[in-house]
């Protein structure tokens, strides 16, 4: 099966100085929803702009369904839909008119046009404001209109650069429900950039994390979380007796433990695999004579994954916070 997106050794250097992409390799399977995560300025938009044929990479290759984004750019443009990070609708005409103009640019046949426009409006919950001027829309309505414009033409791949930025939680949820049902209906591949970890977690089939122009980690959400091999076990002291320094060091010396810190009467231990580490830790603690009333464990969230691979905070050396 051809890949929806295939990127090999892609680099982009702006103005001979700024290395925005530094050897990207990436594969997206057809029909998948792919989330591209990364901090500000890490190169997400740059990659999307190359994939949408806006400019050429400095070196390397990228293709969509076997079409090269440089050589076959005109063909690529026929199969993609795109919502840029910035506002991309005309503010001095109505939402309906925006959709109508787009449907004409994309050559939606006149017989289907009206229906397609109406469907797109309905899908994004914009029927009531369809005939109002876009400049009277709220930020969330504008974003929904932009997505509606992109869905209208039923692309094979949909590129969304931070699609839900500025949307309230319920609007975000509604947009994603619509996107997923659209994807189910049409088999569309979706590639989106985001800062929202929960979105990537809930709606993506696969995730890649980019930092400083390099992909630092990729996989499914659960693979990424497991890859941290980090779980935090919390031991709550019964009598308020703090663990002494020597015991703390003994715990740190256990092979499965990456760190252990005290937070008042609470002992936090970061481990790779909680189920196997727990008996060992309890062993050390009971030999030293400490008892605990409660033990809890916190599995890593995608936020932790992001911070681990793209954030400045380092888990192993983390001082106060584990």
């Amino acid at each position, binding site marked *: 099966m051809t890949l929806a997106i295939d990127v090999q050794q892609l680099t982009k250097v702006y103005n001979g100085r700024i290395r925005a992409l530094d050897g990207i390799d990436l594969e997206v399977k057809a029909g998948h929803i792919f989330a591209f995560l990364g901090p500000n300025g890490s190169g997400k938009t740059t990659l999307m*702009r190359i994939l949408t044929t806006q400019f050429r990479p400095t070196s390397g290759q990228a293709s969509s369904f076997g079409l090269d984004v440089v050589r076959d750019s005109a063909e690529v443009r026929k199969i993609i839909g795109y919502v840029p990070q*910035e*506002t991309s*609708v005309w503010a001095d005409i109505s939402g309906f008119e925006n959709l109508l*103009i787009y449907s004409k640019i994309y050559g939606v046949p006149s017989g289907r046009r009206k229906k397609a426009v109406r469907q797109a409006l309905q899908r994004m919950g914009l029927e009531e404001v369809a005939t109002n001027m876009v400049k009277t829309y709220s930020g969330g309505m504008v974003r929904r209109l932009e997505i509606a*414009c992109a869905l209208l033409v039923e692309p094979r791949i949909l590129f969304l650069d931070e699609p839900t930025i500025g949307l309230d939680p319920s609007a975000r949820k509604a947009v994603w429900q619509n996107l997923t049902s659209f994807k189910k209906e049409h088999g569309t591949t979706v590639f989106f950039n985001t800062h929202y970890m929960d979105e990537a977690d809930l709606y993506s089939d696969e995730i890649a994390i980019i930092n400083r122009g390099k992909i630092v980690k990729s996989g499914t959400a659960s693979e990424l979380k497991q890859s941290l091999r980090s779980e935090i076990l919390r031991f709550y002291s019964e009598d308020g007796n703090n663990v002494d320094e020597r015991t703390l060091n003994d715990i740190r010396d256990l092979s499965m433990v990456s760190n252990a810190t005290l937070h008042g009467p609470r002992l936090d231990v970061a481990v790779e695999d909680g189920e196997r580490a727990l008996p060992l830790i309890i062993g050390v603690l009971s030999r030293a004579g400490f008892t605990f009333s409660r033990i809890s464990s916190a599995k890593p969230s995608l936020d932790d994954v992001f911070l681990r691979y793209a954030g400045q905070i380092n888990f192993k050396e983390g001082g106060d916070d584990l």
Partner: protein
Amino acid sequence: MTVNDSFREMFAMIELEMRRLRHDRTEIYTRAIQPILWLGVFGSVMSQVNAIPTGGIPYIDFITPGVLLQSTIFVSVFYGLTIVWERETGILKRLLVAPASRYATVIGRSIASGVRAVVQALIIFPVALLLGVRFIPNPFYILAAFLVLFLVSGGFAAISIFVASVMKTRERFMGLGQALIMPLFFASNALYPIKMMPPALQYIAVMNPLTYAVDAVRGLMISGDVSRLAIDMTAIIIFDIVVFTVASLNFRKIIE
């Protein structure tokens, strides 16, 4: 990219402009004020002086073609501002990712601007009539004159789009736009015959597409002398082809 696709794209761009115009006509009215002052005040006063050899035509009639052209070209030259604004938002990125050729996009938008410019001229035209300007009473001549207005405005819109794709920011664009338009007007036969100019300026006037446009429109609307129409039209069409091509070649760079 088939011819069909390109036409579709062009028509969509024209429709966009018409819809915009329908929602907000104030700009068209405010931009009519200046040319009306040129005719009503400058033209009327200078008509009394008889200082300029116009070949027996009242001065206000003599400058009407130039003023019409100036007002339409004004619309075109500042059309680039729309493009700069669309660049600042994501509109152009999105448009350039659509399956349309850059030629269709640039020509479509230039034509759209040309249509807008003709609407502008249509507002000034009746005012000129009221001010007593005597037009050649031949509807075909008048129609042909408007076609010239349209072709020239479209060309200047393409220049403006080109400038927008080079300058990229509003401030730089405004600077150049202002610097361009008045010299263009003065270094043409819009306000006085070329023969009256100093030789250096005459040379510029001969290279100025506005000169040919004024000559054509003046022949069709005012003097009825269309002996040079073929030359004028050739010059205008060459001008259009050159600027459309140059603007299209550069257009994708605007989003870089």
